[in-house]
């Protein structure tokens, strides 16, 4: 760990009215690290992602991206967001644009690239997620898995330094999650720094460098996947994992 962290979060709090959603969150992320956030529903994992790209600015606490404090006042947040890619559970593809248009629109109007250059890179990003053949299709003409891969390509088009995934496969039919997870795994292998909220424990075990277990708005435990799944240190993590195992037993066909 001699590298300087790409992301540093210090004492982050988030409150909606009188409801505390995140409390005292602190951690650092090294370049190319993959962090997978797991935990029961409603523990603030999604809110944390939205705090990190300032879509939901933290109530207090500090966030550094590389050596810039992005929570500092007077900072152009749009400039910050383009460096942090975000993939949404509900895709949020731009419905009036084709797959190619979805990837290009940010390059053209945020990065200010000329059209032909943007198109060239957009085609490359679509190739990267295996969808070059579907470039001319509108979101409504794509399957859920394809939509989410376009969502990933759209984020990649901004050349982000960090990628956030907010339950990227939760809205997908089970048979479509694989193609999205495969693209994410490829990204991780290519060295992208990734923070992923997911319930896909298989993916977590295989791709994560570190599991971040959250409960009640706090990070309760963080460990390498092997350690976390084999011998969780806290009672809450043990309980969470045993619940997962139970549902997996029920789901498993006899």
């Amino acid at each position, binding site marked *: 760990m001699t590298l300087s962290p790409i992301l540093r979060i210090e004492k982050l709090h988030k409150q909606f009215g009188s409801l505390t959603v995140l409390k005292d969150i602190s951690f650092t992320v090294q370049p190319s690290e993959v962090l997978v956030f797991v935990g029961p529903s409603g523990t603030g994992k999604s809110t944390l992602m939205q705090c990190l790209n300032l879509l939901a600015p933290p109530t207090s606490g500090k966030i550094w991206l590389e050596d810039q404090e992005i929570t500092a006042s007077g900072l152009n947040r749009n400039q910050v967001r*383009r460096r942090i890619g975000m993939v949404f559970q*509900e895709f949020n593809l731009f419905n*009036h644009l084709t797959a190619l248009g979805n990837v290009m*629109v940010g390059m053209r109007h945020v990065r200010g690239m000329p059209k032909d250059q943007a198109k060239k890179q957009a085609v490359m990003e679509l190739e990267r997620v295996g969808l070059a053949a579907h470039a001319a299709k509108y979101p409504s003409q794509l399957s859920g898995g394809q939509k989410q891969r376009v969502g990933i390509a759209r984020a990649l088009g901004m050349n982000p330094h960090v990628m956030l995934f907010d339950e990227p496969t939760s809205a997908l039919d089970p048979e479509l999650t694989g193609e999205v997870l495969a693209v994410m795994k490829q990204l991780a292998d290519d060295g992208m720094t990734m923070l992923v909220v997911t319930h896909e424990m298989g993916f977590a075990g295989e791709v994560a460098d570190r599991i971040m277990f959250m409960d009640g708005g706090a990070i309760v435990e963080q460990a390498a996947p092997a350690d976390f799944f084999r011998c969780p240190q806290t009672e809450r993590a043990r309980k969470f994992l045993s619940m997962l195992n139970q549902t997996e037993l029920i789901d498993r066909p006899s």
Partner: protein
Amino acid sequence: MIEFFSFARDVLPDLLAGVRLTILISIVALVIGFVIGLPLAVLRIHGPVWVKRLIFAYLTLFRGTPLLVQLFVVYYGLPQLGISFSRMTAAFITLGMHSSAYQAEYFRGAIAAVGAGQMRAARAIGMSRGRALRHIILPQALRLALPAWSNEMVSMIKYTAVIFLIAVPDLMGQAKMISSRMFMPVQTYILVALIYLALVGLASLALYVIDKKLSIPGLSISVKTR
């Protein structure tokens, strides 16, 4: 019947002069309504609270009072405060502002239908609110608003009929003059009704074609036209 056609032939030139005015006033009023209504819709969703309240008051005023009362206030009332307009200007202003209140509501509904997720996704790739509106939200909202907007256009063509009451020689104004000149009110107003019907039909057809041309797979809300 033959009598009706020869009557129609005699009065048609005058009526067509009125039609030209009706079309001109409809278009100008719709454009004014669009230019004022769209920003009102955007500000009503994204503006500061006091702006939202102000807009709500404006919308309530124009949607909650009869068009004819508005017209009379502008044309007969405002001159007493030292603000006077020509007949045509009074017609443009009144119909335009009246329409802006309705268009603002249509556009607001359409923007809401686009959904907050689109704005979030646009912000997430670094777009400012303004850029997101311009490149992501409004292109979708305007398409979604087309069927409602088509209704507004049809209504506008019919609403223009009130302006003969401030002596603008539009289609209705011409009809009134012809009717009192020739003493044939039934024939006159049947003819006028047919012309309004034709105007509304053509306008609806034009918007229908535009709607089809601009349609994007998966981007529509089905709204029955009235």
